[in-house]
């Protein structure tokens, strides 16, 4: 199903700072409803308040709160553009284009594990919510550097069982996500993964080894976000260079030419 793209002005209803480096932006359109979107799709955000940011910034859709007509975007303070987004004030206006790209496959069984790391947990919240609403029982495996870096844990806990790893062992299993036994347990048939590239590669490698179906969400640098500039290409086994912004950002690992 293809959702229509929209460009809308949103008002910053709340900017919830999560630790030093993350902001959860809760946005409400000035007019109309937040456009229908699928889990794993993303938005292109025009940064209004940064001197040195020219292009839009692609940000995963974290959640659409239909009760309050809000779009949630989780932003990590990485460069100047995202830092400016993290510094937005309540009441500020943000121009957002959405929804873009193709999201995660919704499997109609209870054997789905959603694996996220860092800011990559964002689209998994929407995916988990959707699965739960459709009667499935998703599980989550969330990795972070420390306990303090685990994001949206309260939200995830309402959606299904949450497994945790931390690099420093401050909570959950000590180590990276691939150390967690849930990844290799018998009842996991599908993995949806979003996080830093080393994590996604490690998860993909394990999935391939175990014969588990696995999708990952790529973050290739992009300009337009809508298939026009052909900058964000990923080399695929079946079609050569394809745009991550339109064919992805979510890819089944079988399409990728990753050396894993």
């Amino acid at each position: 199903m293809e959702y229509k793209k929209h460009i809308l002005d949103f008002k910053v209803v709340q900017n919830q700072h999560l630790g030093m480096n993350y902001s959860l932006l809760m946005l409400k359109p000035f007019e109309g409803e937040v456009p229908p979107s699928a889990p794993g799709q993303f938005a292109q955000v025009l940064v209004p308040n940064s001197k040195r940011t020219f292009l839009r910034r692609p940000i995963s859709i974290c959640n659409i709160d239909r009760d309050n007509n809000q779009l949630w975007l989780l932003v990590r303070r990485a460069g100047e553009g995202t830092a400016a987004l993290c510094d937005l004030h309540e009441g500020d206006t943000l121009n957002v284009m959405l929804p873009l790209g193709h999201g995660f496959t919704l499997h109609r069984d209870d054997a789905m594990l959603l694996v996220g790391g860092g800011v990559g947990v964002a689209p998994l919240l929407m995916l988990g919510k959707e699965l739960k609403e459709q009667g499935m029982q998703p599980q989550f495996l969330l990795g972070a550097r420390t306990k303090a870096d685990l994001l949206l844990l309260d939200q995830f806990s309402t959606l299904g069982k949450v497994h945790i790893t931390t690099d420093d062992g401050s909570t959950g299993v000590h180590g990276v996500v691939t150390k967690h036994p849930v990844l290799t347990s018998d009842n996991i048939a599908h993995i949806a993964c979003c996080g830093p590239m080393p994590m996604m590669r490690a998860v993909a490698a394990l999935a391939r080894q175990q014969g588990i179906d696995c999708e990952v969400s790529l973050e290739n640098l992009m300009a337009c976000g809508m298939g026009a500039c052909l900058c964000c290409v990923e080399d695929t086994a079946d079609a050569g260079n394809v745009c991550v912004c339109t064919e992805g950002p979510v890819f089944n690992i079988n399409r990728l030419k990753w050396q894993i």
Partner: protein
Amino acid sequence: MADLSVQIGNLKLKNPVMTASGTFGYGEEFADLIDLNQLGGIIVKGTTRMPRQGNPYPRMVETPSGMLNAVGLQNKGVDHFVEHIYLRIKDLDTAIIVNVSGSTVDDYVAVCERLNPLDKVAAVEINISCPNVKQGGMTFGTTCAGAQSVVSACRKAYDGTMIVKLTPNVTDVTEIARAVQDAGADALSLTNTFLGMAIDVERQVPCLSTITGGLSGPCIRPIAVRMVWQVAKTVNIPVIGLGGIMNGRDAVEFMLAGATAVQIGTANFVDPQATVKAIHYINDYLNRHGLDSATQLIGALKT
């Protein structure tokens, strides 16, 4: 409502605002967001004789008020265009112009020949200025002889309106412009991108897989405006201005400098509705200045 139409050779555009090649796909990508029939023209992606995979990732880096790209003419080739894409877009009520690229003169000619019979292709734009291919492209566009060799050959192969897209990476763009006019071009478009480079200083590697790429965006607009102004004073054929046009004001700037029409490129990545907004701006501008035709803007700069 002012008369927005302008004339490029035998081609009448409903308004001066077109999209630049390689920044607007085949238009379809933007159909959710704008009414394509409102555009003066759509210049579709650089089309080559054979399919091309383009350059490896990474192909893009943001720069101050602009971006570098090194796409390298990724496209499915002219046959695919004619057999599939053309059929999908040919009934749009806007001028469909195909950007023609190649590595050899024969390549350009082959694409022109394949496009020549197509009724709904309003014009071709011969790209002798792509900085991101190893052979051909910009190397044709930096000498008068090279430019003429491509343009003369294409002139024989294509009967309709032929626009030639010039590179800014030259000492004297008027010299190339005159040579291209003499070789039979109906119009010129300028500028293509500027050859540039950026480095990831922490990793000490180039930001692009190809080391260098093409710089576009408002950063280079002052240089592009200057070149359009110089060329428009030199040649007798219409000049189509592009290079960092972000909005209607910038479009008017190019027209005042001498452009008959404009192309909006990189701005489509920042604001996919930039083209239609620019058309509205031009109409408002004409009304505000008591003008009744967009043609009155062409070269109207008071110096």
